[in-house]
């Protein structure tokens, strides 16, 4: 299993932060997922070996966190918040809008592999609700029209 130099330097840095190797697991999983798209069997085996863990332990941690996935997601992971603040300001309508526009449901991925959709818990952007997170970017104070526009832009970016 080969990771990028950037991953390797982050990994080395991460190990130095903790007294035991296993503590670096969660951040390492996130970096690996960003790089490989998903935490495949191969990634799991590699990280288990690097961190002195059994593969079972790595899988246990992955299954605990909803942000970690063993199945590849679309290029853009659209995460719509429906917690209280967003819900009151139309988060659920946004989610419905996304479902309709993308033709997929919660945790679904479009045929072309461009979009995944997820209904998520609070993403910490209540002041600007309703909010949506696409990969690591935030989009705030949304309306259906704005949402359409954002999805169009990502589509354009992704198919260029």
């Amino acid at each position: 299993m080969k990771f990028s130099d950037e991953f390797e330097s982050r990994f080395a840095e991460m190990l130095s932060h903790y007294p035991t190797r296993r503590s670096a697991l969660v951040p390492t999983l996130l970096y690996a997922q960003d790089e490989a798209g998903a935490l495949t069997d191969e990634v799991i085996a590699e990280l288990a070996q690097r961190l002195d863990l059994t593969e079972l332990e790595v899988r246990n941690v992955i299954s605990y966190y909803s942000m970690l996935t063993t199945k590849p997601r679309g290029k853009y992971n659209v995460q719509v918040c429906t917690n209280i603040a967003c819900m009151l300001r139309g988060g659920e309508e946004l989610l419905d809008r996304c479902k309709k526009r993308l033709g997929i449901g919660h945790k679904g991925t479009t045929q072309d592999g461009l979009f995944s959709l997820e209904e998520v818990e609070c993403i910490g952007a209540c002041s600007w609700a309703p909010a949506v997170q696409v990969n690591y970017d935030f989009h705030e104070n949304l309306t259906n029209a704005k949402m359409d526009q954002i999805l169009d832009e990502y589509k354009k970016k992704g198919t260029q």
Partner: protein
Amino acid sequence: MPDVTLTVDGKKITAPAGSLLIEACKSVGIEVPSFCYYPGLSLQGACRMCVVKIEKMPKLQTACTTTVTEGMIVSTDSDEVRQARKAMVELLLGNHPLDCPVCDAGGECELQDMTFSYGAAESKYMEAKNHKEEQQWSPVVYFDRPRCILCYRCVRVCGEGMDVWALGVQNRGVSSIIAPNQEDHLDCEECGMCIDICPVGALTSGAYRYKTRPWEMNHVGTICTHCGDGCKTTLGVRRCDTGAEIVRGDNRDKSGINNDFLCVKGRYAFDFAHHKDRLTQPLVRKNGKLTPATWEEAFELIGKRFRDIRDHDGGSAIGVIGSTRTTNEENYLLSKFARSVLRTNNVDHHRTADYPALAAALHGKPGKTASMRDVLTAPAILLIGNDPTNQHPLLAWQIRTNVRLRRARLYVINSAPIKLRRQATPFGLLPADSEANAVAFLAGDDSLLDSLLTDGTSRDGWLALRDKIRGEQNLVIAFGSELRGHDIAKLVSFASTLTGARLICLGDYANSRGASEMGLYPDLLPGYEPIASADKFHKEWGRLPSEKGLSLPEMLDAAKAGRLKALYVVGSNPIGRLNIDPFAFSKSFVVVQDMFLTETANIADVILPAANAYEKTGTYTNTCGDLQLVKKAGEVSNTKPDFEMIVRIADAMGSDVSGLVPFGSGTHSDMGQTRGVQSGEADRHAVWLEAHNLEPKMTPFDPMAILDEIQRVVAGYDISRVNLLAGNDQNLEIADSGASLIQPSELILPAHDDLFTSGTLGRYSKTLNSVYENKSAVPEVAAD
């Protein structure tokens, strides 16, 4: 640590500072219920059943994670506490099926007990139960998900206790689930500790499930018949058409040297007793064919042939091979029978460790052997050779537990990267077959240092390791059969330079040490007494042949040359185990006592169906010298214990049985004339019995009669009868025999059994075989 004083339920109690509140309560008889807390495992705080009210703390606290402090005021049974516990039980029952009437754990279930105590029989919850089908994780481990209450005991005992890490927790919150390491099945050591420790019926045993209910069995605590560690196992026994069937093995009373522990063999491998191939009728070869016969016919034939051969060709034309799985009493009796009735010293057994060399090396050095319990408390352990994880699972458990809970230092010197290296601080990897060199190096011979080097070890590493070991006090040294003869002497003299060092010699079978101590050797009598200087036994047993007998390979040569006219094999399969040519004994009259038609039984002229160690009474000495009581649990009709068969053969030979087994009231009946040569003298045995407040035994088939004689005669066996009968283990010092003879080291042939094999017993254990066949690869272990 100093004690602290606290008040629990109005009672003033004291407990060592730093101890857990739940343990402090337990020590004064106040039970705080818990599911997830388990002594010796890491703390979980998951089940919230042990909540108690502690004054000045705002909420209820978990007693399993709270340490006692001075002046603490605790109430464990207030209304508030009971209410909280009831709510926990109600939540647990929310998804728990109500299948107690068919659940294996019914009657032994901790959740059932709690429900009875706290009464959450009615639920406020209206949701449908979250039902999932049960899964089979391995031939012996089944998982019934809805019954699981997520206490994580199984996860912890598998990881921390067994160092296997085959179980984990998948998902989160209400969808959390215990998961095996291979998606839908387990790849592990199959010890079944997870089943034993499960407080409910979520993990059940493939060998036992749905067979019976706990209250329908009798529970007999006896000693496991597999490896040399001598774990106590409680056998659940139920009557059946052919006698009494063993349906379960566990260790519910936890009083043995193994406490919680049992391995796959101890827990499941008892089913050989009811294998369909079990012999239940004597067989006599007629016209070349083994034909069923009556016991009388068989004994008469054996008696006549043995007597004829002895009187005609002399005792030296008869060979005797004893067993490493029969009791001490049977081994002693066989040794005595061979010498005093068959008049031969051609006695041997399958040797797997050089105990005589240890006895000889320890001459004049008392207190130098360690018991199995000592391994759990020693500050440091040195392991040379052997692979305890596979060959001595209890020893491995003791070592791991000691390292985990008491931070013992473990030094491992081995020519293979055995699993216990993961607990070892320094691990010395040797080239193959250089354990003896390692011992010489430890003892100070630096010239051998170069011969110890491998890729993973350096000169400095070895020197540092030796320095560390030299600095240890009260070190326990366990060594495998790689060390024999003079190497053991070298190790002993090295150990003598360390303060308080004690030794354990590792042999392979349940009673290997017993066979050795009861004198199943051509040149050694019980207690490692050389035949040449055996005045004591001449006195006790009568006139004995004085020339050294034949060892097993020598018997083989004699048989090939036509000089061995008869061979008597008790509970052993030398032809199958030691790769002996089955035609070698075609000219000899061969008698075999066994449970099955083994390779050796196949060549026999007479086969006597024997009872196994779970079907008789006696004593076993484990490889550390811990003497324990073997109790009869199962029964298969028309089999006999080897003890009775030996006596019956002696009787059929026309020999006086009371000279062989001291039974009946000696002094009154015959003034001892029948007890060997001391005719007319007072009966020593009767005098000894009297002095020890013991009754004469009433039948020649009572092994306790021979135990009396062993205790009286054999060096090192002066035991406490009360402790023995109470089921306690007692460590025996290896006999100080003086100059025992050095045994040829090539006669020691390790059994090479691992976790899933156990000689003949393993071959006829369906459960063990199903586990063995299911093994695709070695257990997955943490990378390191």
